[in-house]
């Protein structure tokens, strides 16, 4: 298991957003988290790289282990954690910099300054998201000139440049059209060979198509966590069935 939570509870002030969540996420799989709006799925995702720390009034109890290390331990290096656990957001958030500098941004923070090394990283990262051939002659152009889908690929490449282990994806296709969504999904299926992917999605069909395992959340609880096949052919909990069959949500 690369990610494990035990009795994880999260409170925004007095609001109990995550309730006693026990979860085990396996390496090199795509794990989908589904559930209606406000069920806590994005909150759960943000726990894994401690993004919730930025929110005032957040209180977390229980354990969250990544590679068997407690990420809330005082000795946990937050910068290292966020290098290891990268995040892709709903809207592509390319920096207003050149394509090259977007990718080189992370490595430079990690004190890589050698030009050839940086070039190699940029090439490798763009190639991993199948963008290098398309962009190799445009590396000095602004990243903001790219289409939404290419910007989202670029954001994924930017994560890969710092060699993470886990990619957190929060509705990564919600601002993309169906063709661009299909391309990002195919990319995820390639990336899972090397990385562990946890994706939060409103789009149940997307989870069905690409995830290996799926967790269904409702009102802060993890109702069911199972193989995607089991969830979509024979869910154990009636509430999961009601949600995936469109009876509520």
């Amino acid at each position, binding site marked *: 298991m690369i990610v494990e939570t035990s009795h994880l509870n999260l409170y925004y002030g007095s609001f109990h957003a995550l309730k006693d969540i026990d979860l085990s996420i396996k390496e090199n799989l795509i794990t989908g988290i589904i559930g209606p709006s406000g069920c806590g799925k994005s909150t759960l995702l943000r726990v894994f790289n401690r993004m919730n720390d930025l929110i005032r009034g957040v209180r977390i109890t229980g354990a969250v282990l990544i590679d068997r290390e407690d990420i809330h331990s005082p000795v946990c290096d937050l910068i290292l954690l966020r290098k290891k656990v990268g995040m892709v957001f709903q809207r592509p958030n390319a920096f207003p910099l050149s394509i090259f500098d977007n990718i080189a941004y992370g490595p430079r923070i990690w004190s890589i300054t050698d030009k050839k090394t940086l070039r190699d990283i940029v090439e490798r990262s763009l190639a991993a998201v199948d963008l290098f051939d398309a962009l190799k002659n445009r590396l000095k152009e602004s990243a903001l000139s790219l289409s939404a889908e290419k910007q989202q690929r670029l954001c994924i490449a930017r994560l890969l440049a710092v060699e993470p282990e886990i990619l957190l994806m929060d509705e990564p296709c919600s601002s993309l059209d169906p*063709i661009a969504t*299909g*391309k990002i*999904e*195919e990319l995820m*299926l390639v990336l899972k060979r090397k990385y562990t992917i946890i994706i939060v999605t409103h789009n149940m*069909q997307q989870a*069905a*198509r*690409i995830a290996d395992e799926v967790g269904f959340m409702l009102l802060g609880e993890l109702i069911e966590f199972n193989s*995607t*096949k089991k969830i*979509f*052919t024979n869910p154990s909990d009636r509430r999961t069935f009601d949600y995936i069959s469109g009876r509520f949500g």
Partner: protein
Amino acid sequence: MDRHFDEELQKVKKNLLEMASLVEESITKALEALKKKDLKMASEIKEIDHRIDRFEIAIEDQCIELIARHQPVGTDLRFLIGVIKMNNDMERMGDHAVNIAGSVAFLIEQPRIKPVSNIWSMASEVKEMLKDSVKSFMDNDAKKAQQVCARDNVVDEMRDETIRILLTYMLEQPDKIGSAIPLLLVAKNLERIADLTTNICEDVIYIAQARVIKHHAEEEKG
């Protein structure tokens, strides 16, 4: 764009073709055992049938998972629905091969009788139909599938003729009834296999052209 889903569909097709080749092997071997009155060979059919049964379960499972996870439409949906039906038909053909092999035990003590030659020509036609139906599925060839369907009548006629000859034979030589009855059953099983290859071809046509030709549906529709 290459879709991961297309790879999954290809895996289903590959599995069904592997199952089909086991079914062909099973039928060929059952008929060979019958011809040679070879009980040992006949007993091997059950093992092949177990493998066919395992394929049936696995393919059905694959199809259900793909439908649940990908909500296929158009050709993809027709393909998966067609495969589920063909899968079932092929498993039934495997059972008919077991039945044919089962006749060997009854025939082993009986003297060889003349009408058996009709069975071999019927068997050869049925095997060709099966081979062609599998090929039409492999190539998504509706035209070839339609040609195979037309041959079902030939097998029906062969069966009728075989039954007629065997009945006459039994009336004339009641002491040979023990040899004739198992052959009647073989003829019946072969005819059912031909019907099932026709079903497969109807599914190939449905997958390739979205046409339903069974039960003369197109003629009724006008």
